[in-house]
């Protein structure tokens, strides 16, 4: 009997509680957002939007799913197992040819943060010197920038080895060159007392939207409003992260033991210039243009990564009706 009374009371209290809550959880649209890497400042705006409640303001309940080396974020989004995923721009185009239609809805970076780092004591002063040498480079196999640099500088004598997803191998081997995000790994290494020299790959002329939020084409067609809301919340999130990254970094550092908060703070300040551009000034944070997508597609076609150039507006959507 006591138990029944307790249950009734608990039920009553629960009813009162949900009644007094102005935001009813059930009315939120639940979507999953798959990251392609562990929580780091490259996702700062996403975590900031979650922390500040910008997703909820748009009526979205966004579940952020951590990624890591080898996570198949593009395939997960294309097959609808998650609604949104962080992918690189080239993957939107190459996956399309393999039968998976992705549509980019937000570009976190206007300039590609990809780079190749060497130890500061290394003899290489430029990407060209490195690429014409017989050095060992740890990078993901078949990245388009590698093909681009090979085309430009030869690269016949380089040895390519798999990227381990950490800086341990690089730290242990003073001769190794390794792919990196120009503001991430070099910063972590610097705080450990290892100085690096970084060559951004965008200088080679290959400068895709590298960190984009994408959904599958069917979802973009059926739920355009959800897509707009997510982009709007992300833009607000990124603005707040640009203004004050500290609290979000604290949250991300708790979710990623490999990168400490001080490293994230430093990385956040270094990446800011890649997030804003003339395009974002005119169209808002996260903006993408047909011209940039067409350039990327024709570069990938020249490199033999895709066979045909799709219509730009088929691979991305952008609504300029975003808060500035």
């Amino acid at each position, binding site marked *: 009997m006591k138990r029944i009374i307790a249950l009734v009371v608990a039920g009553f209290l629960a009813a009162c509680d949900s009644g007094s809550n102005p935001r009813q959880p059930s009315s939120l649209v639940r979507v999953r957002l798959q990251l392609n890497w562990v929580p780091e400042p490259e996702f700062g705006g996403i975590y900031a939007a979650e922390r500040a409640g910008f997703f909820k303001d748009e009526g979205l309940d966004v579940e952020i799913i951590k990624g890591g080396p080898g996570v*198949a974020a*593009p*395939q997960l989004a*294309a*097959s609808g197992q998650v609604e949104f995923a962080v992918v690189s721009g080239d*993957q939107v185009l*190459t*996956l399309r*040819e*393999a*039968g*998976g239609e992705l549509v980019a809805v937000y570009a976190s970076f206007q300039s590609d943060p990809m780079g190749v780092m060497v130890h500061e004591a290394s003899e290489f002063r430029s990407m060209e010197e490195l690429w014409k040498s017989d050095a*060992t480079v740890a990078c*993901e*196999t*078949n*990245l388009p920038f590698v093909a681009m640099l090979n085309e430009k500088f030869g690269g016949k004598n380089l*040895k*390519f*080895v*798999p990227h*381990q997803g*950490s800086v*341990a*191998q690089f730290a*242990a*081997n003073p001769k190794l060159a390794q792919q990196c995000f120009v503001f991430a790994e070099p910063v972590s290494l610097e705080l450990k007392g290892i100085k690096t020299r970084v060559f951004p790959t965008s200088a080679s002329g290959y400068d895709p939207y590298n960190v984009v939020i994408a959904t599958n084409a069917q979802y973009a067609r059926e739920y355009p409003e959800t897509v707009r809301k997510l982009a709007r919340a992300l833009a607000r999130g990124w603005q707040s992260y640009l203004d004050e990254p500290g609290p979000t970094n604290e949250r991300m550092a708790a979710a990623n033991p490999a990168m400490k908060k001080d490293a994230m703070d430093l990385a956040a300040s270094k990446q800011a210039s890649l997030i804003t551009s003339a395009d974002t000034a005119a169209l808002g944070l996260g903006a993408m243009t047909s011209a940039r997508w067409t350039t990327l597609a024709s570069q990938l076609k020249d490199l033999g*990564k895709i066979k045909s150039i799709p219509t730009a507006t088929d691979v991305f959507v952008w609504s300029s009706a975003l808060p500035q």
Partner: protein
Amino acid sequence: MSRARTIVSLVLPPLATVLIVILAWEGAVSFFSVPGYLLPPPSRVAAALWSDRVDLLWSTARTAGATAAGFAIAATLGVTIGSTLSFSLLLERGIYPLTLLFQMVPLVAIAPLLVIWLGNGPNTVIAASAVVAIFPVIANTVGGLRSTDPLLEELFAISGATRWQRWTRLGLPSAVPSIVTGLRIAAGLATIGAIVGEFVAGFGGDVAPLGIVITASLREFRTEKVFAAVALASLVGFALFGVVSALSTLLLRRYDASP
């Protein structure tokens, strides 16, 4: 005639199963219109095998070489360690449980360390292959040597046989069937070890080993080529298993024929 019939009855059932699976796979992919990046039909896998045959052949050769080397190290070291342990109960008690570590430590976790210790390239790949393949050889060698017929041991003891004679004339011969079983298991494991080793340490480029072909094709969503490379990797395992089985049949036949 009856021999031919036996071979047919041995070969036909697995062949029929494979054929049915392939047909069902082809049919299901087309019926449910599964996109190629998720699951390519076997016909596209075959097409990828054919169109990239030269590169894939070289890749297979590189993986097969590393697998054979890893297996050879595992076999030699495994039988040596297993035999040494069986010489003394103290050694066996002290060290055998530690050899279990080879089986317990997840290769995927230590593979990046192997790269740091041994560098990139074939050394790490061979080491990874040997590390996973060695345990069944040790365990089966120890097990085989331990299960010698006690009556025969007594006979050897009465006859005043030396330790060395007991080991070469009695222990090792009676352990052969067990060791062979260990080697057969190791053949499959050596291939898996080599592929994992290549994931972390294989050299990329034009003639990349199968492990690199797999990761590179995944990055480009060429799932049909992933399947092709996986099929070839399995073939390497099958081939090694076949060689070990053939050798063991010869060895066991001789052993059985001996009085």
